[in-house]
């Protein structure tokens, strides 16, 4: 962290005027100010945006840079080691001569989309349910606690695996189901925060002037916990991408021919004695993406919650 070495003295008159003239900073602009100085978090942001752009423009790159489509085969050039010539085999080719780099681009599209969409689902459910349980308390909260404890007692991967094996869902259903299984953490957090906030003066004041419950929950309480929800969301997306990749690797998540980083590895496992590079690249992509998300989570926490700063 940057520490100032200047000695402390009373501000001069002109400095005092300058301090007063500076427009007040909001929480968000303050956080952005801190984030910009946090080099590691900014790098993580950059890498993540780069991955997103590469995946989003997969068609474009495949055509113009690699001159290869993701299902194009080349049976004369199977198990090519990574090479610059031709550029399509930048990361090697697989057992039927498909371009690993092009397939990674398309795989990123699926893996990132699943991560973000599922996180959106779990945020929506988690925040709504957590706020409601924490605000209404009583019976609603009892049912909530029971449900969350129950869900937390069954290993998520077991539930997902059984669901995927028995129901054989498509990518969209799978994404929604992953979202619906990951909301317990966020909702427990929201519930705890709401418990504390609902007794505060500004909530009592809002109630006195006749605000309805829904308005108090979403207009008064939610903005107070929103910063930390962003932190949890970043970490959640990472965890979801990890889960999806494991599930797809096991052959139960996103199924071929749609490439995802996880199912590229299923294939690679069969041929790893001949082509180790097929194992390396999808794993590195998953690892880097999740790492960036976790670093962003840590960075956001530092920037948004001054109380936690002291700990690290």
């Amino acid at each position, binding site marked *: 962290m940057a520490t100032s070495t200047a000695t402390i003295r009373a501000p001069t008159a002109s400095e005092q005027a300058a301090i007063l003239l500076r427009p007040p900073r909001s929480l968000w602009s303050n956080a952005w100010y801190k984030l910009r100085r946090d080099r590691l978090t900014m790098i993580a942001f950059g890498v993540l945006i780069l991955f997103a752009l590469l995946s989003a423009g997969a068609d474009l790159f495949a055509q113009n840079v690699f001159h290869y489509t993701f299902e194009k085969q080349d049976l004369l050039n199977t198990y090519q080691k990574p090479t610059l010539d031709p550029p399509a085999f930048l990361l090697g080719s697989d057992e039927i001569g498909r371009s690993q780099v092009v397939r990674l681009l398309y795989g990123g599209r699926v893996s990132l989309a699943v991560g973000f969409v599922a996180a959106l689902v779990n945020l929506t459910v988690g925040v709504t349910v957590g706020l409601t349980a924490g605000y209404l308390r009583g019976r609603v909260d009892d049912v909530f606690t*029971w*449900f969350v*404890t*129950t*869900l*937390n*007692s*069954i*290993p*998520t*991967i*077991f*539930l997902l*695996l*059984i*669901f995927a*094996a*028995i*129901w054989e869902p498509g990518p969209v259903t799978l994404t929604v189901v992953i979202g619906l299984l990951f909301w317990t953490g966020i909702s427990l957090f929201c519930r705890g925060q709401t418990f504390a906030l609902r007794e505060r003066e500004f909530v009592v004041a809002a109630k006195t002037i006749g605000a309805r419950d829904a308005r108090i929950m979403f207009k008064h309480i939610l903005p107070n916990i929103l910063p930390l929800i962003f932190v949890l969301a970043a970490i959640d997306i*990472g965890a979801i991408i*990890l889960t999806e*990749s*494991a599930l797809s*690797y*096991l052959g*139960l998540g996103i199924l071929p021919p749609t490439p995802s980083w996880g199912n590229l*590895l299923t294939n*690679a*496992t069969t041929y*790893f*004695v001949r082509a*180790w590079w097929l*194992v*390396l690249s*999808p*794993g590195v992509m*998953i*690892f880097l993406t*999740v*790492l960036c*998300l*976790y*670093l962003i989570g*840590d960075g956001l926490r530092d920037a948004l919650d001054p109380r936690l700063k002291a*700990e*690290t």
Partner: protein
Amino acid sequence: MRNFILRRLVYAIPTLIGISIITFVIVRMSPGDPIRLFTFGQRDITGEDIARLRHAYGLDKPIPLQYVDWLIAMLQLNFGQSFIYHQDAFQLLLTRVPATLQLAVVALGIQLLIGVPLGVIAALKRGTWADGVIRVFGVVGHAVPAFWLGLVLIIVFAVQLRWLPSQGLLTVGKDVWDLPDRLRHILLPAFVLSLTGIANYSRILRTETLDVLSQDFVRTAHAKGLHERTVVFVHALRNALIPVVTALGGILAALVGGALVVEQVFSWPGVGQFTFQAAIAKDYPIVQAATMFVSVLLVVSYLLRDIAYAIVDPRIKAG
């Protein structure tokens, strides 16, 4: 203390009921029909035979009734016959438990032996390069996909270097009690399974040790003129270790879930691999027995964790 334990036990009952409902519903509401699946291709089977089979397995009753039947049978550990092996599902599952238990216990041991010291060292050497490396590891360990790390380790240690075996409990044909051989087999999967926990423990212990070191009683201990080592190991560490107990619940959940994937990568004949195969084959009784088994295991371990926590930290009992 007895009241505390009793209350916790009572709280566990609705959770267990919830688990049984979910386990039942997720399987029984499924679109596939196991009877059709297992009679598929048998040309001489009639509709009457199918109806009789369905009746034999109790699949023709209304769903709530099926649940009650299932619940009563389950309480007697009777999950029914496996559709594939035609043997008692729970007995079959039990034969797979020792393998998973070995893996989980060794992984837990590795986590504690590596994770705890790493966290303490990071806290004691705060701000140095060692602290930096350990903190980076704390994040990296969470972000590595376990199954992928398993594959990479297999390529490096089993395929390239040929130091360690890549799969199974022990070498075929070797004696069951050949411990060195078993150890060589368990090393890679246990390490892969323990990685998240190592990262977790190192993070928790670092924060906690720093917290404890800044408290008044540590300053008092220093002021009394106690040796630095005594202060850290006798006074501070005892308090910093409390969260090791609390984290155990979440870590066990992670171990059980993680084992499912790791067992698949290393062909480890445990509960996870068994469940995976049963799920793919739509062998409902085994899937239900396994889900109930691991969930009850988790509920019990959460219970033990809470009790252990109350013993270690007497302040908890009030709450």
